[in-house]
């Protein structure tokens, strides 16, 4: 779940910086509100400009922007590094208003879909601990595959294939959603992503039902 980890560190740092800047501005503003009231008889002070101070300030801002751009770009590349082992491939097709997950490496050409109505949500089954390459496309309009717990999404376009790789570290089941507005039942276009042990995944590819839940 490299996306989640990268997001976590970048989000934490940027939130801390944003919080700090916000508090500094709030403190300056609070100081002015308390100490600079006309009712207290405060005179106007200060120069109309402080060009030297402003130049240093712009220098600091620029240096900070350079750091932020470089560091976050590096994190972005870290997130998109090619996987160490050969990934399994799943073809994902978004359509109005549900998903289809096809397994090109399955000997029986296994494919899963649903209606996204009530409890009939399709489940994207992947092996835990192995990289999974999702090839995203859409049948009709643009959709977007979002797995909030993975902190990642990517759009699915018709007439185009987008690819990204994810690895789920442990077994479990997470909610996925459509994030791109796609019409009447956009709100209902949810799915499950389920990470299973590798041997169970192999059995799944051969067309056997999953152990346990009927999900």
């Amino acid at each position, binding site marked *: 779940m490299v*996306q989640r980890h*990268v*997001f976590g560190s*970048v*989000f934490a740092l*940027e*939130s801390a910086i*944003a919080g700090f*800047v916000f508090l500094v*501005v709030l403190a*300056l*503003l609070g*100081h*002015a*509100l308390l100490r*600079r009231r*006309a009712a207290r008889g*405060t*005179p*106007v*002070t200060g*120069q*109309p*400009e402080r*060009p030297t101070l*402003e130049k240093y*300030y*712009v220098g600091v*801002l*620029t240096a*900070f*922007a350079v750091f*932020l*751009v470089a560091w*976050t*770009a590096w*994190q*972005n590349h870290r*997130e998109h590094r090619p996987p160490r082992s050969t990934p399994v491939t799943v073809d994902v097709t978004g359509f109005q208003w549900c998903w289809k997950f096809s397994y090109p490496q399955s000997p029986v050409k296994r494919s899963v879909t649903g209606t996204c109505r009530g409890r009939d949500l399709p489940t994207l089954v992947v092996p835990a601990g192995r990289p999974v390459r999702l090839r995203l496309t859409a049948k*009709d*309009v*643009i959709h*977007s595959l*979002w797995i*909030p717990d993975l*902190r990642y*999404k*990517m759009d699915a*376009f018709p*007439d*185009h294939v*987008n690819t990204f790789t994810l690895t789920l570290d442990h077994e479990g089941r997470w*909610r996925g959603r*459509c*994030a791109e*507005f*796609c*019409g*009447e039942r956009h*709100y209902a276009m949810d799915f499950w992503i389920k990470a299973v042990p590798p041997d169970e995944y192999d059995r799944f590819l051969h067309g056997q039902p999953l152990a346990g839940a009927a999900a």
Partner: protein
Amino acid sequence: MTVAPPEDKEATGGRPVAPSGWLGWATSTDHKRIGLLTVATSLVLLLLMGVLALLMRGQLAQPDEHFLDPLTYNQVFTIHGSGMIYMVMTPFAIGMGVYLVPLQIGAPGIAAPRLTLLGYWLYVLGAVMMLSGFATPNGAHADGWFSYPPMADKEHSPSIGSDLWIGGVMLATTGVIIMGWAVLWTVLRRRARGMTMLRLPVFCWSMIATCLMVIGAFPALLAALTLLAVGRADASVFASNVWNIGYQHLFWFYGHPVVYVMFFPFLAAVAEVLAVFSGRRFFGYKGTALSLLVFAAISMSVWGHHMFATGQATNDYYSLTSIALLVPAGVEYFGMVGTVLGGRLRFPVPMLFALAFIPQFLIGGLTGIMIGTPVIDYHVTDSYFIVAHLHYVLFAGSAFGLFAAVYYWFPKVTGVMLGERLGRLHFWLLVIGTNLTFLPMFALGYLGMPRRVATYATFDGFAWLNLLASIGAGVLALAMTAFTVNVLWTLRKAALGRCRPAGDNPWDAYTLEWATTSPPPRLNFAPGRPVPPVTSFAPLLDLRQREGGTPAAKEASGS
């Protein structure tokens, strides 16, 4: 020309006397009337769009609600977003420029007044056309203010409301482009003697930057909508990915600069208000003017940050340009906070809105840097985090600037002050309502609630945060009621002659519009009240300091 007519000599210029009454307003080439019509029209539409927002918050207050069905909900959020951006904030921003810029530069009128009037009527026509979609059998357009194909093509959106939306937005945008040209032309070519570029008020500088973006970026929207219209006529166009992603590039080339079009004039209104009620000239004037131009220039290169998740944009590049914006934005904060820090603060209603703008817009700006970071954006784009961010920018920021401007310039425009007590009530309700509505949305987006969903399930766990947001929307409705009552009541009292005249310069302000009568005469400055000498960007402050009549005289005068 031997005998001068008693009045309106310049106005008629020997031609028949202009019509009076409503026809006089509808056909006026007076920039003040056109500006006022634009601003008033967008305020009426603001109330209407607010009603649509209340409908949405009603629907989302509880999980699995059936107050609005999804098809209606999609129309409501589409027209709310389109209306607020195309028909309220943008026209209001330009309308303020139409009204104020000629006054602030000491000009008797706007350049191209008849074209400006045409621009206004194109805007009105566009707004009516877009809204008329609600009267068609399948309802209004329902594909969002961005209307990506192929969702917005004929096959997936067959409703005639979509065609009306395209036409309406194109007309209104054309009108705004025309008005933008007129304002830019005016500020560049119609300045009074002595009004050099570096003596322009901050507001005029903001209009220069704004109109440059209007001229540079808005035609891209017309191109995008033309593409959409062609694609609705010929279904094969959007079968190809290149036109789908091409539309997004065209759209966002417009769609990001427009955010700053809806921001700069309000930021500058806040700057003017802060300076006046701090009793000093705006701090760091040159830096702010330069930062506005840099901001406008960079804004033309950031559009791809709306497309980080498309997999079809150069994310590193757009992240670079987007994050670079923190430099000019930081300079503007330097000016605003610096002005207040050395000031002598008074707290009438416009100042309250201007002060609240500073921290509230900052929340929008700081989260803007976060979502300009691709790694963060992958998670939060198209979620409620973005809804929160954009409303902090446009509502907690720009709309507070808008209200600061309304309360500040109301006495100049009408000759009477808006009610102080209702104004304060409006302010406090608006602060509470704004933060109660939009702060929970950051959390909702982070937790996984997508945008533009007509409802959500109970087990999603979004219920109580949504309920808080909906309660906040109710408080906003109360705030806007207080504002509406205040405006209507004040105007009614003024019409009955029961208001004390506000005087020409009730706030002890600095810029030229305060040197003429309230409201200003047809040609802005009468022979008896000529344009005063322009010695800096705060000419009336210079005048008072030379006379030594105000406490501000202690401040070192800058030029």
